[in-house]
């Protein structure tokens, strides 16, 4: 099978600092890729390159047979992106915002309306469709962003911490949604720190650290019969020092100082 995303020798530098160092990765259609790594590892930069936000990189990226550099617009049309931190124009209502984003993807107004109503209804936001989002909770905003990323029915969905701020029911809903999207043959590129979710939903887990891929395989392959959780594998591969020792010294920092009284 041909990979839907093929990244070869991807390198990105900011001045002297190399943020992505020779990344090579193949993603196949219908796969859920869990893209994990510590803060500053290069996850967001990879996503920004894939979504066309960063264009001055070296290496080659082929998406569905098209070179990202040459067919940027075609690739963007295939991708649905849901960023972290819920950055949106919150003075607008969900209806207005989704109309705006749908229009940017060249969708017909009637189609936007039809899909938007269904999606917001599924997310439990149908009553808030005409309310300004500045009074929304983080979770509600995240749901609107999820809807905006899926509105144009993309074949590749890139999610950057999509569960942040969502309540337990919404997390279940999104996890189920990921499975449904997978069944429909969509490819999902899933960046997260939530190891338990990544462990459960991903077909392939890619671990990146300091701009380099240090592990790539299914969860079973990564643990190779060791019985460890993904969290343990992650810390073993990315943390040089002992975490338990660090936690101990953190706790003792509060009691070592003789002048500090316990409150």
């Amino acid at each position, binding site marked *: 099978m041909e990979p839907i995303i093929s990244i070869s020798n991807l390198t990105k530098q900011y001045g002297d600092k190399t943020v992505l160092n020779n990344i090579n990765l193949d993603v196949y259609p219908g796969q859920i890729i869990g893209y994990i790594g510590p803060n500053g590892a290069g996850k967001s930069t990879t996503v920004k390159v894939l979504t066309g936000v960063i264009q001055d990189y070296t290496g080659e990226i082929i998406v569905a047979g098209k070179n990202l550099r040459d067919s940027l617009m075609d690739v963007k049309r295939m991708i649905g992106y849901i*960023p972290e931190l819920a*950055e949106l124009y919150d003075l607008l209502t969900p209806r207005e915002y989704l*109309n*705006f984003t749908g229009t940017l993807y060249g969708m017909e107004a009637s189609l936007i309306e039809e899909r938007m109503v269904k999606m917001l209804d599924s997310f439990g936001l149908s009553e808030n469709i*005409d*309310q300004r989002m500045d009074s929304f909770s983080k979770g509600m905003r995240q749901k609107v962003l999820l809807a*905006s990323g899926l509105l144009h029915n993309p074949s590749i969905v890139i999610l950057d911490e999509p569960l942040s701020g969502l309540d337990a029911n919404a997390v279940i809903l999104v996890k189920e949604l990921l499975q449904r999207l997978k069944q429909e043959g969509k490819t999902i590129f899933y960046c997260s720190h939530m190891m338990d979710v990544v462990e459960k939903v991903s077909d392939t887990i890619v671990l990146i650290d300091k701009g380099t891929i240090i592990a790539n395989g299914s969860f079973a392959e990564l643990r190779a019969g060791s019985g460890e959780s993904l969290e343990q594998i992650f810390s073993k591969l990315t943390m040089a020092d002992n975490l338990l020792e660090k936690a101990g010294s953190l706790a003792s920092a509060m009691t070592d100082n003789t002048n500090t009284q316990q409150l």
Partner: protein
Amino acid sequence: MGADVTHLKAILTVKLKMDDRKPLTMGRQQPNKKKKIKYASTVAFILSFFVGFMYIFPLVVFEDPYLKLFGLYTMLTVLLTFGLVTDFSNVLVDTRDKLIIFPKPVSDRTIFLSRVLHIFIYFFRSVFPMSLMAWIVWGILYGWKGALWFPIPLFFLTLISLFFVMGCYSLLLKITKPEKFKDVIGYFQIFFSILVFTTYYMVMPQMRNQEVFQQFDIKTIAWIKYTPTYWLASCWYWVQPKAAALTGTGWLSILAVLTPFIMLWVTVKFFAPSFIRKLSAIDGVEVEAPKKRVKQEGKSKLYISLANMFNRSNASKAGFSIAWLQTSRSRAFKMRVYPGFAYVFVYFFYLFLNTNVAFADLFEKMSQTRSHLFLLYMTSFILLNAVSNMNMTEQYKAAWIYYTSPLESPGRIMGGAFKAMWIKYYLPFVIVVTGFVLYVWGIGALIDVVLATANVTTYVLILMYLGNRHLPFSMPEQMKTKAGKAVLKMLFAIIFMGCMGLAHYAIYFMWLKVLLTFISIALLWTIWDGYINTSWKQLKIAEDAY
């Protein structure tokens, strides 16, 4: 007053340190990721010093020393209050503390007092250089005693202005819902800036007549005894009691000393607890229950109809919609742009009321001049102000959506946004002004209306094309040092527009006007083509230069 000194000191130290490290914004929350200006306070000092020259005016024109001081203090109070309302509202109602300080064991009074003191320190820092020139003049006029005395009432003045504004805010918080408070403050600020501007232009014509000032007798306006600024002026009694023309001046000076402390006590005692409580409710994440029923599908709104009517491509429709909606709702945009609408009318009427012609004969007199051109070109300020402010927002990070969408070129979005501003803000003005011009000057002035409108649109578009090519609501708000540059650019733009108006004024031949209209429209067409075809590369160059 029930405040914890250690807490107070800690909060103030951090707040002042942050002020010095962020862009020169006088307490406004403005994000700027690139540069840190460390010595913002020093720059503010120099700026305020130059502003201070205007405060010499009352000291020079009046004879009576008490009247001199009354004039000075009134000017200072009005401008300080204005400054407080526009620049310090964000400090006073800063809700970021909600997550940082509110959960810590710090009392309400300490938080309240820390805000008051924070603003006071910042404010006194600018009051001092602002009044420095007046101080020097006072020293020259009344010797070393006068110079030594001068800063004392200023201290009280700052406190009185501060507590006056805080009192107003506390009252507002009592009568408005917390979630609506920021909107109310926004409208209050717009109203206040219009009021100050209008008052200034109504008083200006009187100021030209210097003799009136010199012969002014304080006894004819004995009511000023009841104004706090006169109480402050009466502190001069301590130095020169014999010069006091009004009885009881000595007693009033005691009032000047007592008032700020009484105000402080009243605000801390009665307003502080409810102020903090209400403040916690601002920006709350509590979602209001939806009031309206969900709209029926297919029921189109005005902006959607207009977007479809005036734009062909999807990208320009999106640009039109976002610019239309955001400008209706962004508080910062309204604050910057809406007062300008009133300024245009106030300034126009100031020019005519200043001609000493009876109102009944005013239109008759107007029609004999060609001042309609002045009005027509002045409307450019509306368009210029709207389009140059539509790119800035605190939520500039939300602009990621433009970059991930399949847009061949960003120019279409920019074009749609420009059209939205033209139709929403400029066109209604042009219609009103055209009606007025045709009523007073007759149908013959129609060609002037067309030529001026074409010229204004072309000119503003050229300015956008050359120096302001950004996507709508995608740029961080500028820091004040850069904002100064922006004001200067705006000033030059308006001066050049004035020159264009003068050139138009010099043209009497109808055929030439028609010819120029065609040339202007052709130029507009060419520039427009360049503007809406702005590429991503050109946009990046403009962003880097920002």
